[in-house]
């Protein structure tokens, strides 16, 4: 068991290193940050000097090695654009993304499961058909289009909700939260719907099909035959047994929500790490790009590692394999 975990951790570290190599080799294609850092009256001398100072004259393996050296000590360098430590910037921006991701996930899970159960139980009802058709929108429309549509309806036409930003925030010892002000909560509504819509429809469709599958099972029929209430059968027996795959998917999608908040954050000018990353690409802010990509890959690798380890405990076959047996 310990050997299994060590092996998995080792593999994860290898994956991270490879991600880093790919990321750093890509930075060469994003362009040259020098022109963004110097004004139009710069001389060839200025360009050469700055390039040397930033270490851009070295090849990317050297740059990558230097990045790793510093990163291991928790130092991700200084942002080219802002001239401030990247760690500090990421910590400032993370609460916005995490709060948005949390609200989106909760919306997606609550509404996804509720609508999934509803459309499964009333599979032939008119409303269920309407919901199923509408869910196609969530799956097929690109996020930025949904975002813009919501802004035009609820901000421009109706004037109910803010068109961009996070509203007023309250500083709780470095964590700036939008949960404690009216404008902060209002500002959360449109972006969280935009970000959560895809996940919601995904969960809803998954719950529905799992539910339909389970409802056909013998033990459900027996439960009905025993004269149990519909409610008890549907929620106690059926829903409970659909949740295993649903929880797996929700877990994996949680990472996706954080990683893919980029588009939603750009449309709503939501001041999170995704928007920071987009800005960094536009400016060729290599330290910020590198730190963000590492952060996201650590997150994904971490989730996968956890899932692997959980499987080890849940699935006896895996255990039997690894411990050798007879």
């Amino acid at each position, binding site marked *: 068991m310990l050997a299994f975990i060590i092996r998995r951790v080792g593999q994860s570290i290898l994956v991270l290193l490879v991600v880093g190599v790919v990321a750093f080799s890509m930075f060469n294609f994003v362009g040259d940050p020098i022109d963004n850092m110097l004004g139009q009256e710069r*001389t060839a*001398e*200025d360009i050469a000097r700055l390039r040397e100072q930033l270490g851009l004259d070295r090849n990317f393996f050297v740059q990558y090695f230097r990045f790793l050296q510093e990163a291991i000590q928790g130092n991700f360098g200084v942002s080219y654009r*802002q001239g*401030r430590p990247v760690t500090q910037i990421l910590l400032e921006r993370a609460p916005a993304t995490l709060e948005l991701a949390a609200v989106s996930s909760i919306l997606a899970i609550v509404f996804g499961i509720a609508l999934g159960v509803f459309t499964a139980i009333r599979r032939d009802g008119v409303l269920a058909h309407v919901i199923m058709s509408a869910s196609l929108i969530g799956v097929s429309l690109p996020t930025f289009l949904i975002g813009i549509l919501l802004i035009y309806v609820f*901000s421009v036409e109706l004037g109910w909700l*803010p068109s*961009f930003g996070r509203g007023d925030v309250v500083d709780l010892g470095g964590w700036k939260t939008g949960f404690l002000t009216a404008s902060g909560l209002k500002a959360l509504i449109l972006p969280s719907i935009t970000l959560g819509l895809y996940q919601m429809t995904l969960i809803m469709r998954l719950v529905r099909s799992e539910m339909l599958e389970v409802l056909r099972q013998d033990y459900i029929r027996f439960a009905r035959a025993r004269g149990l209430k519909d409610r008890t059968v549907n929620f106690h027996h059926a829903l409970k047994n659909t949740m295993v795959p649903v929880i797996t998917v929700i877990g994996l999608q949680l990472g996706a929500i954080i990683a893919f908040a980029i588009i939603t954050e*750009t449309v709503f000018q939501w001041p999170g790490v995704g928007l920071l990353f987009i*800005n960094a690409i536009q400016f060729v802010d290599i330290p910020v790009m590198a730190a963000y990509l590492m952060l996201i890959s650590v997150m994904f690798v971490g989730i996968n590692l956890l899932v692997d380890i959980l499987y080890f405990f849940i699935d006896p076959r895996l255990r039997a394999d690894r411990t050798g047996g007879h």
Partner: protein
Amino acid sequence: MSRRICAVAAALGVALAAPLAAEDFRWAVTTDPQSMDPHAVNSTPVLGFLNNVYEGLVRRGKDMSVEPALATAWEPIGQGEGWRFTLREGVTFHDGSAFDAEDVLFSYERASSPEADTASWFAPVSEVRVVDARTIDFMTNAPNPLFPSSIANWMILDSGWAEANNATRPDKESGNFATINTNGTGAFRVTAREPGLRTVLEPFEGWWGEAEHNITRAELTPIQNPATAVAALLSGDVDFINPVPIQDAARLAQDPQVKVVQGIEARVIMLGFPHEAGALKYSAETTDANPFADARVRQAVAHAINVPAILQTIMRGNAEPVNQLVSSAMSGYSEALADAPAYDPDKARALLAEAGFPEGFSFGFKCPNDRYLNDESVCQAVTGMLAQVGLTASLDAMPVNNYWPELRGGNFDIFLLGWSPGTFDAEHPIRFLVATPNEEKKLGSWNFGGYSNARIDELLPLIQSEIDEDARQAMLDEVAQIMADEQAYVPLYVQPLVWGTRANIELTQRPDDFFILRWVTVN
């Protein structure tokens, strides 16, 4: 009794004269100013914003003319050995410390240091002498009539503040106190700064000037996505956006709640050629010759492009054609120069035949796709028009972050370039785009094609030091005429400036794209 009534009436009068409600003004721009240090980054978003916070010895007025700011007067020394500035009395920085000549000297040393991005402004300066607390002399290498106007964006920092906070030199790479904090003498002070998120300004009570605005608080938010910015303006979440996407300008103008403020920017968009190259780099068949070295081929390009059509369709009528490297709003603009070559495809074909390319030829056309307004669409239109006369361009459009390295590497057969003269004078593009490249003299640093004309190189230093305006203009006219005759570049149009505001906002738009808060009135 009556005296008391008078006092009450006076108090009421004061109360009524002052703005009744707090005028909160919110505006959105595409690019957040990347630094609060006025010497660290010489770019429009930074200098435009900081013009509200910091001040220079001189500043530009609503019509771009130079007017007194921290200096009340200036005069040439002797026969043009330098300039003497008389400094304003009673000016204080936002933190309350007094302004004097030592701050000017310190700011000169700081802004002209190698760490600064503004050092080129001080290339003509040989020495700066503090005469007394209210007088300072700038000695120049040669007579420099334009020096006062060339330092309009050079802002003064408090020497004591910079020293106390370890910010005596700008630091682009790792930043310092002055990257985030400010202490200027300007009409507004920064009360909150969250890079990339918001910057809050409030009027500086101790400002020496008289406030024209009625703003009590202003907040700047960067909004990258143009559609979001337009929505924010329409919904009233912001009072002003810059820029308005060209394609939305007409629609916004229809809305009674908002206004579109249009003008021309100082930026001229042009095509450039590889003058020096021995052969084309991206041609299918012309691999051993450089047709663009022949002025007739360059003229053919100029005649083949229908600029008015481009402006009508792609710029929706918001831009103006131009025949030289600066717009008519700049000083030194050559009135004498004839109009740009007219659209005449037959003449273009004839010129090509005369130059020995009756069948035309193919070449590579480099273009940015995120630098200028609708740049890629303009390049596509140009490509189509050139094809009509047999010039087959293969267009390669790319993000600006990749574009400049390509141009510096000489990887083009034709390229698109926009130029906004930092000094608002016709001498500026000659120095950077036309003069023969010379690293030592810091000339021609953007002359990617390596254009070289001995007469122009000879005229440039004369233009820089000529005090007599007519003689100077005559030389500028001569340069403009040579450029037109040789078709060194093909100037296409002056880029438009399109701002959007709520209907209750009054403001002033300047061609340098600076948004000056003290000219804003909220009605």
